[in-house]
């Protein structure tokens, strides 16, 4: 069963991909979902707004950012880390 954070992130990513949330799995990559660079920047923004966090993401080198966007699972993990950091 997905937790609230995971559910919310999937919802945001699904919206960017113009898909239903149940079509997005933790193993999906942004490429699989057809999310381009602008879509990714918008998704990062929406996630920041949803959880009131600041994500260290630079579109110049998404693969090399401190924020791992390899797939939905890695994004969820990174966001959970940032939320924990903020709460501590």
């Amino acid at each position, binding site marked *: 069963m997905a937790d609230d954070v995971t559910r919310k992130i999937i919802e945001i990513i699904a919206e960017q991909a113009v898909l239903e949330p149940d079509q997005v799995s933790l193993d999906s990559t942004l490429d699989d979902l057809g999310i381009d*660079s*602008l879509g990714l*920047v918008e998704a*990062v*923004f929406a996630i920041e707004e949803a959880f009131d966090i*600041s994500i260290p*993401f*630079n*579109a*110049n*080198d998404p693969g090399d950012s401190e924020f791992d966007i390899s797939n939905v699972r890695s994004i969820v993990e990174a966001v959970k880390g940032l939320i924990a950091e903020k709460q501590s």
Partner: protein
Amino acid sequence: MRRVVITGAGAINALGASAAATCEAMREGRCGIGPLDIRDVDRLMIRIGGQIRGYDETAHFSRSEIALFDPFTQYALLSSREALAQSGLEITEALSYRAGVIIGTSGGGLHTQDESYRLVYQEGKNRVHPFIVPRLMNNAAASQVSMAHGLKGPSYCVATACSSSNHAIGQAFQLIRSGATDVMLTGGTESMLVFGGIKAWEGLRVMSKDGCRPFCKTRNGMVQGEGAAIFVLEEYEAARARGAPILAEICGFAMTSDAADIVMPSQDGAARAIAGALADAGMAAEEVGYINAHGTGTTANDRTECAAVRQVFGDHADRLMISSTKSMHGHLIGGTGAVELLAVIMALRDGIVAPTVGYVEPDPECDLDVVPNVAREARIGAALSNAFAFGGLNAVLALRAI
């Protein structure tokens, strides 16, 4: 067709408060990028920029002028004054009807907007200064320059984001070449280093937090700058007849549109603009010794620009120099092509090619001679200036030494 030459240059930006000071900094490879000193900088993630230091508007303008001049207008006026002084051109009554102004700017009076919105939204004021509109309008700089020097021919502003300056200069060139005018003041100006201006750019996630390193493997984005550069363009025979200082000849200009993506650059659009400028100038690719690159320091631009240069120049791409002076003055957005034209003039006139500073590691995707870190002496007969804007609008100028 009539020939068009540059007979005066003026500038103010992070590298200096004149065209000569700017060129000297470029020659020395000095970087004008540093910590931003603006209101609310602590609420920004991006805290560096190519900011003009030690500028005092009251040293140049009266109180009543300042009420009408946003910094972007002030920079254009100061640069125009300097350019006209260098050209030695006297605007007679007869000439005034054959002379105009085209100035590129992307954002216009952003200081005025930022300050006024702060007053009405944040501070709850219900009244703003009566001149907010004439101060912030995009054409304010072009209009004030026309008024300051009595230029009564065609004047307007051009807003094509990062290509604004090159579009403006190219249009001014075409007006003189076609015979529509005899003299044009042209260039670009921008003053986007305000809280709202930087906050908006932060959102795109393309800005670097630590520096502008075009063509370098370690590059991680662009850095904004501010300022202006303005040039006097004249018809060649008239300029020669009056013994004007001729800095360079503008020989060709081309504009293209990618018609593809609102932010991602296109190799095809860039290559067509470069090839178009060469064709318009009747310039063989082998003539070109230097290209002033758009070179923003983003991953996408620099890779695409190098590929476009290779596509157009073939083997000759390995025999020309290409540098990005944004590494020193930052990206002046609508004003950038104008400041960068100074580097082109310096290459053609003084035989000094401005470097790309901050370069630490070669990138196989940008394997051209980018003149890393140190200026170079070279005899340059012909040069290009590239500008490729968000929105896919490309504008390339072709110039020759004279």
